């Protein structure tokens, strides 16, 4: 059977048009039942975390709990604790250490000035620098205020690792994609608190839902001196620190 060029072109044109039309129709049908989480309505939440510096004892429970809950590879951290040692007046030069992310606690050492612990994690910024640089839409801000990574879509290009001003992202050596704190999305969407908050013995960390008018976070934010990390970068950080020292970077 011989096919003229005209026939071939017209046939292939028809097939292309038909398949795309069918695909569009299928998408339309599927979109009808895409949201399959009847119990969790993400539009009624706006997640955040509060950290009370005066309560952190540097025990490392949060770091261990996070690693266990999320399968964080050894040597990488979604949350970690830093120990600051600030000489009395040289605020620009604090001595900071974080042995193994604080996972095994902090060995006692002689201090020069004032010393305290600062737990850190992803700030779940409302205007995240990391989301802005992702070339493929693999990291994004969710309607409930989290910054998440789609590991199936991530290329591992590391743009976001560089863009995060807080150093909260790492490349998971198992998947070669970027990984970070999800604020335990799989827990908080089931009504639980995050693993780090669950394991924190002093109540230093508290999960907060800013859209819930009954959440004690509103009192906490109103009645205390609150600071976020690197406010000058206008990232819209949602990890609120009480009693944060000016030397903390």
């Amino acid at each position: 059977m011989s096919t003229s060029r005209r026939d071939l072109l017209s046939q292939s044109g028809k097939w292309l048009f038909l398949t795309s039309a069918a695909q569009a129709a299928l998408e339309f049908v599927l979109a009808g039942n895409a949201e399959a989480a009847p119990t969790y309505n993400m539009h009624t939440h706006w997640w955040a975390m509060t950290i009370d510096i005066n309560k952190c004892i540097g025990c490392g429970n949060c770091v261990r709990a996070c690693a266990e809950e999320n399968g964080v590879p050894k040597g990488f951290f979604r949350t970690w604790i830093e120990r600051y040692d600030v000489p009395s007046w040289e605020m620009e030069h604090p001595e900071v250490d974080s042995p193994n992310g604080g996972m095994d606690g902090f060995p006692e050492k002689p201090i020069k000035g004032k010393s305290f612990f600062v737990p850190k994690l992803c700030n779940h910024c409302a205007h995240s620098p990391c989301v802005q640089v992702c070339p493929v839409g693999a990291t994004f801000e969710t309607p409930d205020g989290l910054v998440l990574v789609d590991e199936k879509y991530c290329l591992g290009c590391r743009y976001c690792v560089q863009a995060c001003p807080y150093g909260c992202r790492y490349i998971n050596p198992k998947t070669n994609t970027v990984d970070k704190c999800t604020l335990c999305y799989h827990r908080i969407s089931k009504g639980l608190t995050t693993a780090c908050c669950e394991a924190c013995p002093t109540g230093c960390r508290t999960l907060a839902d800013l859209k819930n008018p009954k959440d004690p976070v509103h009192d906490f934010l109103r009645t205390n001196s609150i600071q976020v990390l690197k406010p000058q970068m206008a990232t819209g950080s949602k990890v609120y620190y009480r009693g944060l020292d000016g030397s903390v970077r």
Partner: protein
Amino acid sequence: MRITFKDAAHLIRLVIVVLIAMAAFAGLRSLMVPESFGQYGHYRGNALEEIRAKPVSFAGRQACAECHDAVVEAKKAGKHVNIGCEACHGAQAKHAEDPSLKPTKPDTAVLCARCHEKNSAKPHGFPQVATKDHNTGMACGDCHQPHQPKL
């Protein structure tokens, strides 16, 4: 001078080629862009569902209280009242699912020091001891009850 259909035939061919190209683009695009992309924004909407579906390791203190109400009552009298069970006992979601899986009891000689070992960076007023002076060779649990730590 009238423009006849015959005169515009070359334009029609051009239009057909453009239409084919557009259809090819639309077809390829719909094949390559994931189904839920753009549902909430410039990302795959189904990724949210996938992340939410991950299993939990820490059951949460409410789950513990369902069976261990005696311990919850005992803790109310002590300073450790607000500490979650899994802060000391570790992740117990598997035990909560299947209570026949017995968790190992934490060793108080190691456990208590995690929080109460003396450290200059700890907030003032937090009870701390230098374990090597305080209880050489003894486990904290020999004297203190972890659920009600006061002697």
